[in-house]
């Protein structure tokens, strides 16, 4: 497939893997920030191919994993209302809230619909003027422009029955929080290519300097990620710490000004809690007062709700690279993909689920084959 298969070419990938292994004189610990990159690493088994040279820590860049429990619970409350059509990106449907998930709300009669774009949600609102249509606006800077656009359009078109439940987060404050953490192990970052396609990378330059850490803006295909790893390892080996751009076909230093402008017009920075990590100052987005009419929390008077997370789940330490999933006391025993204690065990790219499957596979591969040949 044009523009895709070229970036998955094994004939180029294999020498690249060898080159990373040759370049690394010691094992380096890198963090990929974005869930999309984690997806590629897990799907292609890149961890395994680079064992000994690079340890990848799957960072907090998956909206499914870091959307705080309070916001999930608010989504569940809205979705259960008979007057509401609740719209969401697909994979938010099975994120556990305090006592259920959106799929279960749907089974109990809630009108929950999967959309691929917030503009589709706006269209549903225009087609159903008698219902309140709420869109769950989650994600990083990547989804923010489209979500901002939907709110902006709703105001322009005068759609009174459309609101958004906002739980946006931004990447740079998370990188900063991880680097400031006392027992941080991360030595280099692969920054999320599509976040930077919107925002550019100027915000990352002071971070790289202050924390003396290489940051490589990286794409999502296997060759992108391998090249990003190589660039980070080359910086580490030569003692450099700058922002470099691997994803040159999509990202410019200034990002996409039109998208940034729309985001800044609609949203403002706010302190935001990250599930599993805690509150990070000025790391989230909320609607500006001029767009308050489209804020679901205000319209439905949701206010502050108090929730309790399971004390047994150590997702925060996993997301920040301090704890490897198999070392979590609940891993594989009280916490499994069928009965997850945390979001990291839910999504197939969640760090805990990825380790769980690999551990099961390795154990089964080494075990005496039981009755397989007869």
């Amino acid at each position, binding site marked *: 497939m044009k523009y895709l298969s070229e970036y998955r070419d094994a004939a180029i990938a294999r020498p690249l893997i060898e080159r990373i292994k040759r370049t690394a004189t010691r094992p380096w610990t890198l963090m990929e920030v974005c869930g999309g990159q984690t997806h590629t690493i897990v799907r292609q088994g890149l961890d395994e*191919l680079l064992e000994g040279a690079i340890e990848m820590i799957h960072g907090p860049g998956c909206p499914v994993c870091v959307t705080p429990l309070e916001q999930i619970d608010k989504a569940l409350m809205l979705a259960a209302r008979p007057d509401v059509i609740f719209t969401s990106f697909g994979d938010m449907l099975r994120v556990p809230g305090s006592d259920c998930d959106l799929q279960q709300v749907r089974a109990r009669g809630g009108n929950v619909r999967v959309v691929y774009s917030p503009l589709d949600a706006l269209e549903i609102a225009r087609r159903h003027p008698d219902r309140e249509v709420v869109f769950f606006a989650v994600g990083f800077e990547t989804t923010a422009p489209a979500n901002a656009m939907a709110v902006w359009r709703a105001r322009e078109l005068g759609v009174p029955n459309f609101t958004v439940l906002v739980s946006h987060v931004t990447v740079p404050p998370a990188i900063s929080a991880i680097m400031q953490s006392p027992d941080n192990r991360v030595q280099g970052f692969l920054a999320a290519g599509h976040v930077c396609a919107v925002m550019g990378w100027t915000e990352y330059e002071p971070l790289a300097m202050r924390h003396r850490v290489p940051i490589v803006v990286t794409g999502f295909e296997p060759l992108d990620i391998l090249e990003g790893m190589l660039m980070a390892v080359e910086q580490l080996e030569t003692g450099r710490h700058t922002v470099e751009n691997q994803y040159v076909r999509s990202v410019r230093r200034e990002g996409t000004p039109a998208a940034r402008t729309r985001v800044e017009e609609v949203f403002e920075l706010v302190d935001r809690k990250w599930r599993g990590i805690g509150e990070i100052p000025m790391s989230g987005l909320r609607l500006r007062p001029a767009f308050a009419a489209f804020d679901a929390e205000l319209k439905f008077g949701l206010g502050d709700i108090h929730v309790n997370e399971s004390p047994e789940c150590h997702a925060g330490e996993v997301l920040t690279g301090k704890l490897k999933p198999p070392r979590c006391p609940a891993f594989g025993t009280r916490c499994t993909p069928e009965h997850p204690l945390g979001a*990291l065990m839910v999504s197939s790219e969640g760090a805990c689920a990825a380790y769980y499957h690999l551990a099961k596979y390795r154990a089964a591969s080494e075990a005496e084959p039981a009755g397989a040949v007869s």
Partner: protein
Amino acid sequence: MTAVSPVTLACPVPLVAHDRVQLGHGSGGKMSAALLRQRFLPALANEALARLGDGSMVNVAGVDVVVSTDTFVVSPLEFPGGDIGSLAVHGTLNDVAMMGARPVCLTAGFVLEEGFPLDILDRIVRSMADAASLAGVPVVAGDTKVVERGKADGLYINTTGIGAADAQFRPAPERARAGDVVIVSGAIGRHGMAIMAAREGLAFETTITSDSACLVGLVERLRTARVDVHVLRDPTRGGVASALNEIAAASGVGVEIDETVLPVPDDVRAACEVLGLDPLYVANEGILLAFVPAEDAERVLAALRSHPLGAGALQIGRAITGHPGMVALRTSLGGTRIVDLLPGDQLPRIC
């Protein structure tokens, strides 16, 4: 509790047990399996049902007969490459064929919603009749129920197939053996993606057509090739990934497949990329998977390729003694990925 550092908090509480049926219970993944294991099997237990094949073999007055049933609720009712009528015939005939039996007759049950247009019903019944007569299998009994408007989505069809078992040709999920070669008869992912593309609400244009087809003729080629086919399975709901997992679990072998040879058509791959789905979990309605002894692989491939529906047949993997009950994919870059059953429906990803 362990000491926590400044940027650490905790995370979610366990999920409560399901108290209602969810769409995921019909996905063919782990939730479907749990529903079957926890709700249906304990109540309806018997030896034939416990085997959990595509259907069951029962002995009727000394003759082995195969019975299989399936219910069709596809939406939209008419889609590129087929409709619910032909699908209801193909699906059940294929399940009978996967047990190595020759289909003899079909029954059909209809649930119709009040207000359903009769001209559409005519088209669907005509399509059913054409599919049945092409396969040479008559519909010998039927039933019709009408429910109030809003109580059904237009039209649902149940079909049951009866087949004559063949003592010389009895593929079954538990018969896979380490050393077997895994063969697929054609391109994967077409039916599911054709339905996704045709479904209302996804503004998405493609040329993908469903692969819905009757596999009885293709299976006849295997029968006449006189090969001991260990397993036959049509990878419908849950796709190739789920079918391979069920076979691995039933027979206690590990299955290894090679990503570089998986026959995923470009348009299916593109649609999956756009929608964030994995073609391995997408439904098929006109291909089969076969586990055969390695020494017979070439004969099986030749037999399949001699039929139009098997022209694209190829080997995609093998059964091994390692990792029993699990399916592993060798990625194009040489890495390994575990291909597990999904909990429920495949959900599109955000990023």
